């Protein structure tokens, strides 16, 4: 405990550590919260608990082995990482990916986004003390994991994206199954989500908490749902990578309030958007090969960006004509959202801290790699 004299009356500030082992965080993030009574004055992050030196390991491994390595940057959006990496290498090696593979990539990417958003909605419900909702949302999420296992062979680490295409094809039966599961998920969500959206106590905990104004969101470089909840229409799927260009483009989902409730609403609405994308991709999928053979080694440098469930992901890849990369660098969305989080925390009540932290959907494994 330390004493500071900010006015005529000396106030007593308490510093409490939040994490690294904390019930609401599945991950080791540590924040030192400076409190004045119950009000947070300042939040100081102490990161590095999850650092695994992944960028350095990527230089030691073959560039094809790296597809499996980058998937393990984060288990929640593993497919997104391998997709970004493959797109980068394909750009370097000027590989033309078959259209069918691009559509299949959209199917898995959007299924991943749905499972990630459901996971987030469940965790945030748990953070404001609604355990029942957490259980129900995760029950629905199991349907998506199940269909991922049926189509790609694994629940979490799909390992289905490869340089030059994808490794598995879907037959008509599997596609019909995906559509059936989507209908079922949406039907079950219709029963659960109104509670999250309209319940009096939920709104009490979320509305007006953790405000982020559009200007601040822009200045602090917030990305993804955090920026969109503050009214910034930014979504990298608009650039039309993979098959998004052929599927009629993307209109970013935005909200204007910039509070925790808005950030949750973005995810709720994006669930339906993602389901629509899967449906469209399956409808429009062309026949043809799912991968092209790739020869040679990557040479030159490239910067790839794409939209992850949490925001914009940037990979920098530099090859030097050998099997090993010269440099691999990842800038993940939570890293970009941390300054915005540290701006939201001061002034809030201690009891709101877990909700605010979770409202940016932090992924510490990504951030610290």
């Amino acid at each position, binding site marked *: 405990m330390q004493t500071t004299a900010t006015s005529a009356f000396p106030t007593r500030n308490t510093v409490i550590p939040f994490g690294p082992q904390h019930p609401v965080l599945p991950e080791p993030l540590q924040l030192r919260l400076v409190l004045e009574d119950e009000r947070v004055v300042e939040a100081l992050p102490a990161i590095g608990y*999850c650092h695994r030196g992944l960028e350095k390991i990527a230089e030691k491994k073959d560039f094809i082995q790296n597809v499996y390595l980058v998937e393990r940057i984060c288990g929640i959006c593993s497919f997104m990482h391998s997709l970004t990496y493959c797109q980068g290498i394909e750009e370097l090696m000027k590989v033309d990916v078959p259209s069918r593979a691009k559509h299949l990539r959209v199917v898995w990417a959007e299924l991943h986004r749905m499972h990630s958003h459901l996971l987030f909605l469940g965790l945030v419900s748990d953070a404001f003390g609604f355990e029942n909702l957490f259980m129900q949302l995760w029950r629905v999420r199991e349907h998506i994991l199940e269909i991922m296992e049926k189509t790609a062979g694994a629940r979490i680490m799909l390992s289905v994206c490869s340089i030059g295409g994808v490794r598995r094809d879907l037959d008509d039966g599997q596609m019909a199954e995906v559509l059936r599961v989507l209908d079922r998920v949406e039907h079950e969500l219709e029963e659960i989500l109104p509670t999250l959206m309209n319940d009096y106590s939920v709104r009490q905990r979320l509305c007006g908490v953790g405000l982020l104004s559009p200007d601040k969101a822009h200045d602090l470089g917030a990305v993804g749902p955090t920026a969109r909840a503050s009214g910034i229409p930014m979504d990298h799927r608009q650039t039309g990578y993979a098959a998004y260009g052929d599927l009629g483009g993307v209109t970013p989902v935005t909200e204007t309030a910039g509070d925790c409730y808005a950030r949750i609403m973005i995810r709720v609405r994006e669930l339906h958007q993602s389901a629509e994308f899967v449906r469209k991709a399956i409808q429009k999928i062309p026949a043809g090969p799912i991968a092209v053979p790739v020869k040679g080694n990557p040479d030159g440098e490239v910067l790839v960006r794409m939209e992850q469930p949490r925001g914009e992901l940037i990979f920098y890849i530099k090859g030097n004509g050998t099997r090993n990369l010269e440099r691999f660098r990842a800038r993940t969305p939570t890293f970009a959202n941390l300054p915005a989080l540290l701006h939201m925390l001061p002034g809030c009540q201690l009891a709101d801290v877990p909700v605010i932290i979770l409202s940016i959907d932090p992924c510490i494994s990504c951030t610290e790699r």
Partner: protein
Amino acid sequence: MSAIAKSPWVVHFNCSSCNGCDIEFLACLTPFYDVERLGILHVGNPKHADVLVVTGSVNHRTARVLKNVYDMIPSPKVVVAMGVCSSSGGIFAEGYNVLGGIDKVIPVDVFVPGCPARPEAMLDGILKAAAILDRKAREGTGVATVSAAKPVINLVPLAADAAPAPAAP
């Protein structure tokens, strides 16, 4: 079977994992797999727990925290290493700051393979741990602290770590 093994309380610590194993462990709690039907309860405070579930490899920064969390759990206690990362370091074993599996820092009773381990395998691991817990409780073993049980490798105290206690407030 002693009462403790019929309802083991589990605390989860993410050492430095990729999240894959963590979300699979959380999936064990939810209605589809539902560990609670087997009497297993997930708690947030290590002081209430009997079983420590660790995911992810251990690095220089988490080694101290892991050791502290382990020491905080009352004896008898068992440790379950979930996934290949916590068993051997897995894909991150060659990372420059990764020490390897968690058995470098604390004694481990059950290793669950898989990357990520499947929820069924995790349930099986926890049930195996409960049997070991039962044996330890009846034999009165498993009371040794980590310092006595394992020569801990060179845990350099980091300046930033020195001040606050690392566990949940």
